[in-house]
């Protein structure tokens, strides 16, 4: 009986949160079009979220390219297709691994930071203080942060893709002595615009939802220090889940839109 009650409560809570996020999204679009855009805060946030994740994404990307190449090479070489290695690794990173992995890192680093920051502002009455002085805290705190994550994540993913590409080259060079020119030519030999456009579009959505969900969790957090921890944690968990759901949706849509006309 207790389990049943718990499941009922959790289900109700889940739909309550989904409804809350939907309302929060509506409020975001209302504010972004109706009120003066906080340009200076947007640039400040772009710098903060970009700078915060640059090193982490850079290191991860380099290792990702390197490890992927080292692990796949023996299998591909066994099949006699070693010349396809650069293309295989590059396409898998650009279309799938890069956006998802870098978005997850971004959610962990930036999402938790936003959740904790807004939540501690809520706890210490800073958001209420902005509200009572009619300064529209939603515009200053939420719109600027969500816009910044939406713009910065795709750029960070491009940066990560480039470093993963270099990591892959280093890995292959160590084993086969391939020249950079040959690696570059092979990597881009079967690489088309249609490979990068769905990845870019989904990374924009990843950035938007990471920012939005993290802001929602922080802005509507519970009181007390416990609320701060919960908000940071919930921001990462919910953002990660949404990344995978969006990825699943994006794969299906890209398959429909790009591959369908070609049969």
């Amino acid at each position, binding site marked *: 009986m207790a389990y049943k009650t718990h499941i009922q409560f959790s289900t109700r809570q889940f739909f309550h949160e989904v409804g809350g996020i939907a309302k929060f999204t509506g409020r975001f679009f209302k504010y972004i079009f109706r009120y003066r855009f906080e340009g200076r805060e947007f640039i400040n946030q772009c710098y903060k979220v970009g700078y915060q994740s640059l090193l982490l994404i850079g290191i991860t990307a380099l290792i990702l390219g390197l490890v992927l190449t080292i692990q796949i090479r023996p299998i591909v070489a066994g099949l006699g297709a070693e010349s396809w290695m650069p293309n295989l690794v590059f396409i898998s990173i650009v279309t799938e691994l890069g956006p998802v992995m870098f978005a997850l890192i971004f959610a962990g680093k930036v999402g938790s930071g936003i959740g904790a920051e807004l939540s*501690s*502002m809520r706890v*210490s*009455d*800073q958001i*209420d*203080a*902005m*509200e*009572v*002085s*009619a*300064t*529209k805290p939603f515009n200053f705190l939420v719109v600027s942060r969500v816009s910044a994550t939406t713009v910065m994540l795709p750029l960070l993913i491009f940066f990560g893709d480039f470093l993963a590409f270099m990591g892959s080259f280093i890995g292959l060079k160590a084993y086969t002595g391939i020249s950079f020119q040959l690696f570059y030519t092979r990597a881009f030999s079967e690489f088309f615009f249609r490979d990068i456009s769905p990845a870019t579009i989904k990374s924009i959505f990843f950035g938007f939802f990471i920012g939005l969900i993290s802001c929602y969790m922080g802005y509507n957090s519970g009181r007390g220090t416990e609320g701060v921890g919960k908000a940071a944690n919930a921001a990462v968990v919910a953002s990660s889940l949404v990344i995978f759901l969006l990825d699943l949706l994006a794969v299906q849509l890209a398959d429909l839109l790009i591959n369908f006309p070609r049969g």
Partner: protein
Amino acid sequence: MDKERILHINNLHKSFDDKEVIKGISLSLYSGENLVVLGKSGAGKSVVMKCIVRLMDLDDGDISVFGTDVVNCGEVELNHVRNRIGYLFQEGAMYDSMTVSENLLFPAKRNPKLRKLSDSELEDMVSYNLESVGLEDARDLWPAELSGGMKKRAGLARTLMLSPEMIIYDEPTTGLDPFTGESILELIMEVKEKYKTSSIIITHDIKCAKRTSDRMLIMNDGKIISEGTFNVLKASKDENVKLFFK
């Protein structure tokens, strides 16, 4: 009383889940008056204040501030009213990511009237208001570098930037040592004289009530149990009122 009534609350009710915390409160504030709302922690004082500026929605009742029905008005009218009210939070609520002077400039640069002023005029206002609260040397400090009393002073200076006609002080002396608490009370009286503001001061500190009140209300368990001047209430025979003066 022939003074203008600037705030009127009529039969305010507010519940959280099944618990009714405000049980039909009515009160008024007149221009130039310091009204102290005295009550124990959990009596519902802060809830009433948050309903006045609509940080919380009430369940039932009417609230009129400067003649505007804040319960049913739109966002524009509400912001217009909020621009005329200052709210000093318990811990000062300074924005952590900004220095003291940036904290003061933040609401000013977003205020419809003040944002027309030049940067140097706004800087002069910052200096004037910091000087008024005795923090002229703290303009470049971060909130984390301020003591509890300094945070409250800085919070008050930020409130004064918008030249409010009415200020709500939420527990102004809580968490401060007696000397710092005394200096905050002095400051409240100075602000009243210098800026000609009306104030609501919510507190459980009887010393604060004595120093700052023109009139007092005593709240207990979500209701107002007594009203009058400090001396009238002190002489009350009501056991619940007597408890506060022991």
